[in-house]
């Protein structure tokens, strides 16, 4: 409780935020109003409170007017509370004597009526002035940070982050769901705009991950449980059985060769189903780790138990173990990087483009595999009939920029469509048509690449495709697919007959994104990608301290951007690790012994088991190290014996009263 003898001297500062606040709220009026409130010694309005002069203004006033409480009326505390707390500290005042009032996100940006917005701002300032009088000096608690890091997802973002962290000398656990790392990038043939081969730049990094002494790589594994908090996470990783002992297998492929299936029979996931694989397989020659995997959904041994197990006998290293069980690994880490990536839009969701109905409608990922020399067609672009197409139509924005599917632009499709147009032209000499809404090529060398394509005889038709159909109007069109689209440049609907259609599918959040979000206690934005702490100033941070995001799990992103983000996320994690400790908000609960009646109501309510019962004293007690400061026990205590720092009853009640009582 505040010292009764202490005279409360409050300074109130109203921020204009340029026109952001001043355009919708009478900031001068609010400042004048605040000046008349009890205990307010000085009240000022200023153009940008968060600027250096703004902060210095507060510091100078604290000294000059001997202020001991500060109310900053500006934007959301989630954005600038730290800034103003530091300014308060610099002036020699405890940072918890500062209270923020949010009149930007909560008022000026959302309320249109000037008078109402001003009235609301006054109410909020009055509430804060009443609250701040009761605020107490508090200190942050320091907890050590475990230097180990967990990275979830072994695509290019995860690989880059893992190598950065490992090179900085930190112990890295890289967990990947699939049997190999590499992610989507491993599927690609060439990368835009430089057209360098994806495998050539990716696979060396994959083997570096495998060989790095600081990296523990767990593929075919998933995080199954997470406990703890920033600096001190306890994570459970489940290693799915691959029925091949990783340490013994050398990837010689003998088992694959000797499998009782003479030919591949099941759709090969890596080749987008364009080829078949056996139940025992290695996804691709550069898979890392280069270890075979047995798919228990298709393997005869697991389906019927009646297999001669030719694979097992073929392995001279005895690496095959049909009795493998899921293995649980428990690790302790201080920070987590989520690099779980994206999934491609399912083209079947737009039936008017005929994917799944007309055999010669392909997705862009299928064509990526086709143009790849080690792909299912050995680099030949072929129709399902096995012929080289004479004309190919590439439809942009499939599952992007569409009210009915996804509203967002997937950012990469224009560029990869240009790349595929170039490659298809190069491989087949076909007429290639690009149907686009807008050509979006923002990036270094990207527009130049587009320009290059314009000179390569590739056709560009600006307009959204309405349908792909086999309805023909002349005998020459027999056997072709017709792309119908509005050509907005000439203001007409065109029918372009082609042999092959490529759907440039967009990027969407992974189906398991929600599961992962819940496990790591972070949020997703409206469309389902992981939510960053601030879109501009904290793009790799989340609202959960110690958990960072990078790559396409945060939003559609190309390779350069994913790698850059991975670096940023690694740097953020390194900052935490190298400072050795984190400071936690002191919003923990505590029990006033004299009031506690020992009723035990609080014991079961704490989700962290932070409350224990002292039988001798017949009172409850809270372990501060375990308390996370939700305040649930505070509200539950029937005798009001439990209090919460930063959110004391008296503080909240005075805030509520302040809103309504003038």
């Amino acid at each position, binding site marked *: 409780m505040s010292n009764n003898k202490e005279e409360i001297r409050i300074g109130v500062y109203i921020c204009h935020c340029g026109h952001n606040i001043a355009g919708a709220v009478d900031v001068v009026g609010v400042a004048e109003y605040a000046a008349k409130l009890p205990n307010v010694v000085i009240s000022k309005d200023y153009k940008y409170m968060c600027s250096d002069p703004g902060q210095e203004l507060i510091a100078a006033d604290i000294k000059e007017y001997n202020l001991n409480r500060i109310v900053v009326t500006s934007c*959301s*505390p*989630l*954005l600038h509370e730290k800034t103003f707390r530091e300014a308060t500290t610099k002036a020699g005042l405890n940072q918890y004597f500062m209270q923020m009032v*949010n009149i*930007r*996100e*909560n*008022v000026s*940006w*959302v*309320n*249109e*009526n000037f008078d*109402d*917005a001003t*009235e*609301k701002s006054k*109410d*909020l300032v009055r*509430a804060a002035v009443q609250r701040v009088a009761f605020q107490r000096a508090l200190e942050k608690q320091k907890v050590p940070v475990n230097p180990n890091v967990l990275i979830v997802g072994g695509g290019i973002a995860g690989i880059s982050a893992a190598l950065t962290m490992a090179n900085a000398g930190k112990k890295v656990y890289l967990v990947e769901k699939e049997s190999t790392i590499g992610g989507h990038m491993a599927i690609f043939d060439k990368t835009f705009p430089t057209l360098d081969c994806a495998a050539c730049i990716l696979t060396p990094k994959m083997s570096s991950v495998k060989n790095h002494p600081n990296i523990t790589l767990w593929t075919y594994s998933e995080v199954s449980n997470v406990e703890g908090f920033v600096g001190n996470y306890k994570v459970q990783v489940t290693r799915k059985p691959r029925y091949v002992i990783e340490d013994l297998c050398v990837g010689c492929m003998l088992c694959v060769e000797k499998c009782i299936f003479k030919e591949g029979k099941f759709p090969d996931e890596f080749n987008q189903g364009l080829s078949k694989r056996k139940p025992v397989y290695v996804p691709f020659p550069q898979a890392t780790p280069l270890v075979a995997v047995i798919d228990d959904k298709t393997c005869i041994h697991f389906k019927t138990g009646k297999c001669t197990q030719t694979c097992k006998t073929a392995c001279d290293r005895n690496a095959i173990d049909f009795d493998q069980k899921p293995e649980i690994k428990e690790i302790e880490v201080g920070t987590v990087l989520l690099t779980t990536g994206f999934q491609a839009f399912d083209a079947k969701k737009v039936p008017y483009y005929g994917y799944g109905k007309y055999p010669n409608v392909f997705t862009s990922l299928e064509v990526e595999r086709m143009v790849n020399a080690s792909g299912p067609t050995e680099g030949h672009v072929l129709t399902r009939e096995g012929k080289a197409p004479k004309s190919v139509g590439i439809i942009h924005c499939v599952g992007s920029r569409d009210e009915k599917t996804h509203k967002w632009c997937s950012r990469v499709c224009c560029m990869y469509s240009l790349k595929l147009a170039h490659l298809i032209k190069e491989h087949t000499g076909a007429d290639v048509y690009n149907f686009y809404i807008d050509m979006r090529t923002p990036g270094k060398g990207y527009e130049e690449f587009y320009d290059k394509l314009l000179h390569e005889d590739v056709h560009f038709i600006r307009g959204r495709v309405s349908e792909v159909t086999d309805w023909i109007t002349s005998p020459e069109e027999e056997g072709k697919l017709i792309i119908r689209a509005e050509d907005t440049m000439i203001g007409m609907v065109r029918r372009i007959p082609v042999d092959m259609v490529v759907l440039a599918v967009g990027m969407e959040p992974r189906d398991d994104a929600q599961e992962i979000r*819940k496990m790591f*206690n972070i*949020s*997703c*934005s*409206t469309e389902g990608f992981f*939510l960053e702490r601030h*879109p501009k100033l904290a793009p790799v941070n989340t*609202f*959960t301290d110690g958990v960072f995001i990078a790559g396409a799990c945060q939003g559609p992103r190309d390779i350069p951007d994913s790698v850059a983000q991975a670096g940023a996320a690694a740097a953020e994690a390194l900052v935490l690790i190298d400072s050795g400790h984190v400071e936690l908000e002191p*919003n923990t609960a505590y029990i006033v012994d004299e009031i506690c009646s020992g009723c035990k109501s609080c014991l079961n*309510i704490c*989700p*962290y088991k932070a409350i224990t019962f002292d039988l001798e004293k017949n009172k409850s007690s809270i372990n501060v190290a375990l308390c*996370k*400061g*939700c*305040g*649930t026990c*505070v*509200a*539950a205590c029937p005798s009001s014996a439990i209090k*919460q720092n930063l*959110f004391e*009853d008296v503080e*909240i*009640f005075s*805030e*509520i*009263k302040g*809103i*309504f*009582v003038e």
Partner: protein
Amino acid sequence: MQEEVKNNNIQTAKAWKPKILAIFCNWCTYTASDLAGVSRLKYPATTRVVRIMCSGRLDPQFILTAFSEGADAILIGGCHPGDCHYATGNYKCLRRFHLIQKYMKQMNIEPERLRLEWISASEGKRLAEVIGEMTETITKLGQSKIKQQVANIEK
């Protein structure tokens, strides 16, 4: 003194707009409120937000105090079930909400004056809609008389 009261009444009669106390948890609904701001969604200036870390901190007395001080309505915002930043705080909030509803019924307070909504950090739009709806409902319902009634009892 009497004249002042009169004036006050005239003023309220003319320009009364509901005042709604909004108690939002830090992680979901307060963040949604920020998102509504960043997205420049528009809603009536009827709410006054008090931030708590978790909806589990909601003390029923917050509600009763607000009503007796003149709140026309109260909106509580927490994370969706299963999404609580503190695992289960929102469930505890829900339990208390049901109790307060019962109490309000006994006290003859219109149930519309208290609303609990699960609004996640990504649902800025939902937040704006809820505030819009609630403002409409409470405007139709009229000013809360609880403050006056409490004052009369205290007299």
